[in-house]
């Protein structure tokens, strides 16, 4: 990286931290620290929701996904707008009316304390671990491509944002996310524009899309049907996108405190709803545009020499093994096929190269999808823009990690500390303990990140699988709470425990793509609750609707 890149990167990151600290002034109680005194307008809610969902891997992985697999990944988001409507109709009014701090408080009102604690505990477990992986995933890509020390990268990725998240709570999170998102969108547009300018003379945006289309990359809508049968293991098609994506978005936005905590900061129910519905309008086009950057990068590499493998560090490691000669021989073959413009053959060699890498480094996933975009940036973009795009990766990570830490702290304080440890603490004590829990979760996430290399390098999938293992069951509990009044506390509690074990078992059996686990988890809780309720006496606790 050049000096200019370093200046831009450091200035941007320091600027965000200063802005976060400047916006940290908030009232010293739970309302101020976790909900910004419920004072945010709808556009701040929107930006905060988007900043929380769009993590660093979104910007690293999505263009690479389009490069390798085409545009069909966008279908993953088709269920989201429908989920926004359902949340506005059923979830937001109840959360607002009960003036809850966490989504799980509602469950104590509707069921009982143990159901609330179980659900909040499942959230803390899944979100705590996935936040650690969210720190490690972009760090390993940056450290691998730029030769940075992974431990220091983890510390910067997960550590600096703690300064403003701890001091300013939800308000600092929302304001920094607003600025972060503006820089991220500007950076991605600039990257897309630069790819087009780097295309050979006479080629424009339209012809670049056409080139990608000719190679089957404009496969936006796919049916999931292969050889006349629906493939349940196919990850991205219109059905898994609409149905699986709907359940995933419903659980993420309706039952995950990192998102619920964002729209609870709105100054009214109306502002919460408009923020969510606008997210339903803009999310799919935004993802489409991010994927389109990957398509442009693909077209770019049709006219420039693409690396046989996009992650240099892995190649260097593999070349220290007995497979060094095989790798060098394949690299030579790859160069000659590229010189002959034999695209099909070069793809075959890339696959062979990955197979050799897998043999050379048995513990590692040879998938280099996540490295494609950043490798393109580092190798081809001008000085300054490289620094800006690396800053984009950091800011995207910070936006989602800050919201996660804030939500982890709010659940620990409201659902556990104030309930079981220190019931009658003052507002000042609440505020102080909330800050310490924010710091504690930040340190925990960094420790998880430091050990995450044991997961191999398929980290994005690890985060998604982790979410899918728990989200379905959590969503099922909320669906029963909202819609099936006859089911009471004990039935839903035991159904959730059994449902969670079954979801883990189904995942272990590996019959089905992980996206469907959200649907299965939710349905299992609903069905098991009905069955268990038949064998339990009905208690007469009034139902909150």
């Amino acid at each position, binding site marked *: 990286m050049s000096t200019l890149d370093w200046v831009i990167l450091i200035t941007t990151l320091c600027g965000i931290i200063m802005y976060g600290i400047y916006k940290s002034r908030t009232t010293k109680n739970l309302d101020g620290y976790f909900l910004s005194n419920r004072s945010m307008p709808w556009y701040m809610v929107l930006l905060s929701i988007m900043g929380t969902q769009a993590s660093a891997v979104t910007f690293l992985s999505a263009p690479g996904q389009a490069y390798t697999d085409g545009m069909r990944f966008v279908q993953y988001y088709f269920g989201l707008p429908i989920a926004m409507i359902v949340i506005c109709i059923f979830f937001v009014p109840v959360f607002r009316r009960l003036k809850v701090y966490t989504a799980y408080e509602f469950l104590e009102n509707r069921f009982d304390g143990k159901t609330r604690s179980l659900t909040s505990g499942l959230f803390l477990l899944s979100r705590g671990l996935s936040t650690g992986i969210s720190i490690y995933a972009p760090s390993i890509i940056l450290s691998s491509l730029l030769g940075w020390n992974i431990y220091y990268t983890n510390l910067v990725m997960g550590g600096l944002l703690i300064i403003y998240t701890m001091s300013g709570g939800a308000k600092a999170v929302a304001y920094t996310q607003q600025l972060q998102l503006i820089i991220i969108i500007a950076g991605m547009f600039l990257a897309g524009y630069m790819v087009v300018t780097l295309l050979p003379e006479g080629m424009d945006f339209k012809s670049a899309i056409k080139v990608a289309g000719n190679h*089957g990359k404009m496969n936006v809508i796919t049916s999931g049907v292969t050889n006349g049968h629906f493939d349940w293991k196919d990850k991205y098609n219109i059905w898994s996108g609409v149905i699986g994506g709907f359940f995933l978005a419903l659980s993420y936005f309706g039952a995950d405190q990192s998102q619920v905590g964002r729209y609870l900061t709105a100054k009214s*129910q109306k502002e919460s*709803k408009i923020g969510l519905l606008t997210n339903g309008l803009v999310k799919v086009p935004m993802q*489409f545009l991010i994927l389109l950057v990957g398509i442009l990068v693909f077209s770019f590499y049709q006219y420039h020499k693409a690396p046989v493998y996009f992650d240099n560090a892995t190649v260097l490691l593999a070349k220290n093994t007995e497979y060094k000669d095989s790798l060098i021989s394949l690299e030579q073959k790859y160069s000659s096929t590229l010189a002959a413009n034999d695209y099909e053959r070069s793809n075959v060699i890339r696959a062979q190269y990955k197979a050799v890498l897998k043999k050379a480094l048995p513990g590692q996933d040879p998938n280099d999808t996540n490295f494609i975009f950043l490798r393109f940036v580092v190798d081809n973009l001008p000085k300054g823009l490289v620094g800006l795009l690396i800053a984009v990766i950091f800011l995207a990570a910070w936006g989602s990690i800050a919201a996660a830490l804030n939500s982890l702290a709010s659940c620990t304080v409201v659902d556990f500390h104030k309930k079981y440890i220190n019931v009658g603490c003052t507002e000042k004590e609440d505020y102080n303990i909330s800050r310490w829990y924010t710091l504690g979760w930040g340190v925990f996430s960094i420790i998880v990140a430091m050990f995450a290399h044991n997961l191999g390098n398929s980290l994005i999938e690890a985060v998604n699988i982790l979410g899918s293992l728990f989200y379905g069951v959590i969503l099922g509990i909320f669906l029963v709470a909202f819609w099936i009044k006859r089911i009471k506390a004990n039935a839903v509690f035991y159904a959730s425990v059994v449902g969670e074990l079954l979801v883990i078992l189904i995942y272990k059996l590996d019959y089905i793509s992980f996206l469907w686990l959200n649907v299965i988890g939710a349905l299992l809780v609903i069905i098991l609750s009905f069955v268990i309720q038949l064998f339990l006496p009905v208690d007469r606790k009034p139902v909150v609707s």
Partner: protein
Amino acid sequence: MQLDSSKPELPQEEKSNSYWNGWYIIVIVFLLAQVTFYYLITQYFK
């Protein structure tokens, strides 16, 4: 922690059903329009 359900939100923030139905229709119609557009793109490049 006690939940406070005794204080209803201010009435002015509640909008009529038709206001929200309008929003829901816009979101659904926009989604359908996008899916149609994406379908046409897919077919065009097939």
